[in-house]
């Protein structure tokens, strides 16, 4: 939802609510009652829904994820100049959108899935960021789900018919064999070893 649409609804709500605060007497007429219902109920609901949608879409952006201090090493790992690092290779070659690089491979983050427990974890992340001691390196609550790879790779001929993946395809699809398991694509963010690596700088 474009930000302008959200802004329009917010401004309309502010205008009508402001008018009712200054001149509540207008609700004695039928038109005033309808206006009050729009300004004090319908538009605020719309503003809330559109604003929530805007926030969720914005939270998928790489820039948003990296705005937490403890995520900075993970952002840095996207620029490692070594194609064997899976996130870096995907980011640098536009295999994932650079604007939504984190979300593309981590669609099961607390905001997007999970129940109350997941939301409490999200609040814990805020607490750890500002008041506690964040655990470094960050660990996933659940093992990395192959679904994150398969939502792009599944169906690709080179992937499904290749001699490497073909024989173990059933295990990959059922998550019995992790894509990032040792011996496969096990070089991921590796934030503990970032100091000894070369980095790619995109051309301006």
């Amino acid at each position, binding site marked *: 939802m474009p930000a302008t649409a959200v802004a329009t609804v917010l401004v309309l*709500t502010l205008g009508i*609510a402001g008018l009712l605060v200054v001149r509540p007497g207008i609700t004695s007429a039928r038109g005033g009652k309808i206006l009050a219902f729009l300004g004090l*109920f319908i538009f605020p609901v719309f503003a809330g829904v559109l604003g929530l949608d805007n926030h969720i879409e914005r939270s998928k952006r790489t820039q948003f994820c990296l*705005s937490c201090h403890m995520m900075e090493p993970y952002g840095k790992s996207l620029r490692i100049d070594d194609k064997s690092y899976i996130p870096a290779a995907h980011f640098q070659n536009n295999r994932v959108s650079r604007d939504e690089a984190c979300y593309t491979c981590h669609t099961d983050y607390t905001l997007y899935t999970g129940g109350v427990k997941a939301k409490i974890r999200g609040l814990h992340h*805020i607490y750890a960021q500002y008041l506690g001691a964040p655990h470094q390196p960050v660990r996933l609550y659940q093992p990395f789900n192959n679904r994150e790879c398969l939502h792009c790779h599944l169906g690709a001929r080179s992937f499904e018919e290749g001699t490497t993946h073909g024989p173990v395809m059933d295990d990959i699809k059922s998550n019995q064999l992790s894509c990032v398991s040792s011996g496969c694509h096990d070089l991921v963010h590796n934030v503990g070893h970032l100091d000894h690596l070369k980095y790619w700088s995109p051309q301006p």
Partner: protein
Amino acid sequence: MTTEPGQAKQIEAQAGDKFITTRLRLSGVLIISGVLVQGISLFWNHPLSFLAFIGIGSLAVFCGMVVYLFALVSPRKS
């Protein structure tokens, strides 16, 4: 001193209007505050902005809507 039936109805109506007016104003102020917080949070690119949107903005808007809806259905008090 006794009040005539017509006057009594007028006084009752004025009291009812005052009751509605007060609640409409309260509802309006809560909704304006909430919407302002929601609006500001949309321009703040930070994880805390989402909490501000939900925890402060949406809560204030919700309270404002509840006050308005209660004002509509509550019996008018003098």
